[in-house]
């Protein structure tokens, strides 16, 4: 026990500010995504919010494991429950926030996974990473707004919008992946 504690203390002493920032961000984004996704009534249950925040620590503590994927799907599940079982409305702001937070969890966990906890990280690494992420987030917000507005325009034919948008998205991704393989 003492050896384990000593090892933990030693590892904690080796943590660098850069990696602490990345993992802290992963925790904040994951906790935020879960809190945004789950319905308000569930959050009012005693201990539910604390449990969700605790789940948000998983991508920060173990970014190289499948826990990050599980947290992402947990948030998506919470969103589905909130919008179906609890009939909460799908607003563009909440939808865009959740989409951005989920992507932030994914990308900060990806960075935390390739940078060991005791790495001295040059500030330029974080700045460049943030700049690239900002582009994706801006596109996401635009896409969310366009989708919500688009559904209203086609007067409730969400099925059609989802199918068309999904097929276009998958086709675009597949095409880019193929191109990148050839290059």
């Amino acid at each position, binding site marked *: 026990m003492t050896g384990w504690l000593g090892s933990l203390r030693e590892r904690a002493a*080796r943590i660098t500010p850069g990696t602490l920032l990345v993992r802290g961000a992963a925790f904040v984004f994951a906790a935020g995504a879960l809190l945004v996704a789950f319905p308000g009534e569930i959050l009012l249950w005693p201990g539910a919010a604390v449990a969700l925040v605790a789940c948000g620590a998983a991508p920060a503590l173990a970014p*190289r494991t*499948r826990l990050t*994927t599980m947290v*992402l*799907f947990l948030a*998506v599940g919470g969103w589905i429950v909130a*919008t179906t079982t609890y009939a909460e409305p*799908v607003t563009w702001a909440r*939808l*865009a926030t*959740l*989409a951005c937070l*989920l*992507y932030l969890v*994914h*990308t900060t*966990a*990806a*960075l935390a*996974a*390739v*940078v*060991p906890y*005791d*790495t*001295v*990280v*040059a500030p*330029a*690494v974080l700045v*460049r*990473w943030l700049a*690239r*992420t900002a*582009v*994706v987030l801006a*596109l*996401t917000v635009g*896409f*969310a707004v366009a*989708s919500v507005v*688009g559904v209203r325009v086609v007067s409730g034919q*969400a*099925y059609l*919008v*989802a*199918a068309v*948008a*999904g*097929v276009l*998205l*998958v086709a*675009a*991704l597949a095409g*880019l*992946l193929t191109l*990148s*393989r050839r*290059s």
Partner: protein
Amino acid sequence: MADGSLGGAGDEDGWVPTRAFGRAILVVGVLVLLAALTGRYDLVVLAAPFALGTALSLRRRPAALPAPELSTMDARIVEGDDFAVRVSVANPDPVALDLVLVRLWLPRWVRVRDADHPYAAPVAAGSVAEIDLSGTALRWGRHDVGPLSLHGVACDGLLVSLRVECEPLPIKAYPATDPFRADEAMPRAAGLVGQHHSRKPGEGGELAGVREFSPGDRLRRIDWRVTLRTRRVHVVSTLSDRDAEVVLLLDVLHEAGESGGTGGAASVLDTTVRAAAGIAEHYLHRGDRVAMLEYGFRARRLRPATGRRQYLTVLEWLLDAKPAGGADQPSTGAFGAHLLSANALVIVLTPLLDQRSAAMVAGLARSGRFVVAVDTLPPSLRPPTDGAWGPLADRVWRMSRENVIGLLREHGVPVVGWAGAGSLDHVLRDVTRLASAPKVGRR
């Protein structure tokens, strides 16, 4: 360090997908499938950043691996000195890398500030990223800084390169010379030129006195003042200047004591090497010829020479000094008095831990060499004395060693502990006196 590959795809060029890549594809696939099945457009919106981010990241992917290199401007330093190490990582690819993760492995006696941490730095396309580190060599010797291992990360953490290694960087840390000075004359010179004022009259610079002129004296030696005063021709007599050969014999049969590097405790080998460097520097600075010899399995030898070049050669030679191992000893042909000049002053640096060392020193003295033994055993060294018989065994061992030292003194070998400057003056005086005394030789 990588967060796991997804099964070998794409590793033919040294880049493999990470778990984040698989996660992005999985999230997009599941959410779009659910959206298509249930008709929920919001799930497509949730999948959108993953698809967009992955597509943007993989727009351009690197094909070449980053190339690391270690360099320094201070490949030759003195132990305890600081030196700079530059880690250069070249990215020959037209695609920029998010970061390169660099980890440097260090030998025991080298400290580099923050080098026990990996470093992450970005590398632009077709450029070189440089990380400057400063370190200290804590002990003399040849140290290999490195190897350096490196991983490149590209496409927003979706691709990571296989490990790239860089050859270690050799650093030579010369021993810090212990201060040494010896004012005494050499016991016997090898030539009629040199720096030492001999005890014999001759052509030199040191004034020995004024005496009456005798046939053979040079006219320029006439002291006219004394000649005018005494009305008889007098000349100034001088002592001859001689050079000498010094052989430093390093006993490396055994290592004892724990080395603490510069500023710490000195082991036997530390004392031996630093003392040898100090003595060699002193005599070479005075113009003498210095030779080096190792008493161990390898029986390495450095031929006598003079000057600064020889001093640098001696330092280089000392870098390779290492304990020979207890059971090994040089063969008779590889080591012996025949390797030493008859007039050389032999300074043996020995911890006298082995009977073979004592026998070797006594053998050199018997062969007519002028031998001085310098005891390099650290005074603070205490053998392990655990157990009831430990202290007694320690006392017996010390008495036995004192007995060996006494026997050597009976053979005419002065034994003196190493104490830096002036530590050999007393014994050199004795050796010089012995050398000038008439000898009774066996016929």
